[in-house]
């Protein structure tokens, strides 16, 4: 019996002592497995519409008359687009290829309207509404377009309702947005399977 009891002293106790050293060493050397935090880019989270900055920074808005009334003559209304007029403007607005469908031919600071008086820059949505009636109605209802501010507006300035041109370039109205944010990141320890490996082409 005693011979076996000695085993405790010769094996268990030294093993425990060895473990003490191992634990203390590993306790000091073990570092946090969490990678440090990376700051977010403000481009990823600051609210913005595609043309918000362009519109706010525009200088000559509403001042077209300075040139058009003084030096540039009123063109022939049958011309779709006068040669050499604003060559930087690339027009991709579907069927709508004539400049004077929207720009008022007699007063270039205004837009065309049904009553012939012309629309001011700030009411541009009414101009778009002449063709895009359903969208215009939805925009008025608040179901189309971007709102900022309060979901339950009580005072007139509680909510900012963006006009059409804050998102759509009137000359190329197809929606364009440049600041896309990156996908979520997974730590190395997570093994993610690509969908392609699971679902074959035909099934996918």
């Amino acid at each position, binding site marked *: 019996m005693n011979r*076996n*009891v000695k085993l405790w002293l010769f094996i*268990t106790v030294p093993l425990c002592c060895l473990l003490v050293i191992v634990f203390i060493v590993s306790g000091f050397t073990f570092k946090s497995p969490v990678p440090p935090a990376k700051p977010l880019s403000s481009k990823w989270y600051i609210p913005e519409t595609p043309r918000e900055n362009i519109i706010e920074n525009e200088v000559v808005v509403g001042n077209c008359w300075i040139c058009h009334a003084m030096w540039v003559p009123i063109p022939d209304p049958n011309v779709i687009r006068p040669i050499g007029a604003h060559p930087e403007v690339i027009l991709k607005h579907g069927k709508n290829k004539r400049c004077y469908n929207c720009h008022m031919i007699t007063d270039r600071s205004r837009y065309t309207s049904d009553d012939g008086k012309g629309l001011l820059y700030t009411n541009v949505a009414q101009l778009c509404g002449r063709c895009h009636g359903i969208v215009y109605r939805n925009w008025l209802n608040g179901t189309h377009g971007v709102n900022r501010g309060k979901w339950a507006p009580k005072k007139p300035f509680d909510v900012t309702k963006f006009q059409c041109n804050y998102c759509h370039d009137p000359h190329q109205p197809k929606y364009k947005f440049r600041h896309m944010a990156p996908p979520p990141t997974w730590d190395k320890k997570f*093994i993610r*399977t690509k969908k392609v490996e*699971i679902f074959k082409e035909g099934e996918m």
Partner: protein
Amino acid sequence: MINLISKFTKVLINGNKYYILWVTFLLVLVLIGLHAYSRQLIYGLYTTGMGDEVSWGFYIANFAFLVGMAAAAVMIVIPVYIFKDKDVKKIVIFAELFAIAAVIMCLSFVLIDLGRIDRMWHLIPIIGIFHWPESMLTWDVIVLNGYLFINIFVCFYFLYKKYHNQEPKTWIYLSVVFLSIIWAPSIHTVTAFLFQGLGGRPFWHSPLIAPRFLSSAFSAGPAFILIVLILLDKFKAIHISEHTIKRIRQIVTICLLINIFFFFSEVFADLYMPTSHSINLAFLLGVKGKSILTPWIRLSVALSIIAAIMFLTPKLMKNNVFVVIACILTDIGIWLEKGLGFVIPGFIPTPLGDFVQYKPTFNEVLITISVWAGGLLLYTILVKIALPIINGEIRKE
């Protein structure tokens, strides 16, 4: 009291060299696991392989398996008290002691899985908030702790009477034993309901889960106890009759066959007409894509079938070595099926269809092994103390 402690200390430190090496081995594992767990406490569960996608991993998998092992003690008790099988009666205490160790392992697995173990008191009724009866987890807390106390009471009462050289009072003993017979399936059923009740996880949301849990438990648990008994018999600690082994073997065999049947039933239902809800199982079995778990679940099915064939071959069963091998295969097979093959695939893919696989980290494996080692150490100690009392070597003077 001091007398008693010194008696038990003597029992505990005297043993053959295998015993001493075994205890030392387990003790070292427990200490290493303790160290690993302290790391987990400091750096959070990030030290495990779990993430938002697979939010339960190795710990809960082992928990689900061990609840079954604990419940299985009842399968040894039933033949004794319902079918009046006198021969098996002698070994009931070993099954009940194992139930104690297994429930404690279960509770440890749940505790180490918690993110905020310091807030455990929130779960205590009255001083905390016990969200009962809505939350199945509260039911699990009740049934697991209840089962633990029932088993501690039965074992303590039995050993106490033996120590005092008295016969246990039949009505006390029997009433508690019958309570435990009713209670034991409940712990596993409730654990199955824990998963089964989640409508958002189609892999778990199947009415066959609870029966599958019970059948797998009632084969894995008795199989483990059979291994223990044959080993104890080999070391001449107790004598086990041929009849006892046969009776337990029969239980294991039948439950194993039922379990394999249930598994194939589930596979058929999911894969014959593969709906979008069968993607978890299809991915697990490697029908669509390849999961890390695919080889393991295939191995599990193979092991279960091999074990079943071994159990059904009378020639092999005459030799206890083959019985032990078949039992080990059963246990490993069911551990793979219930742990790796049930809990984890429920999360792959996520409800939004993201296929993030789970691989336990080294730290996590250390902690898991350590809980197992702790449980086995506890069981070893309990058996070591119980043996001389049962054999009449320690008595009150």
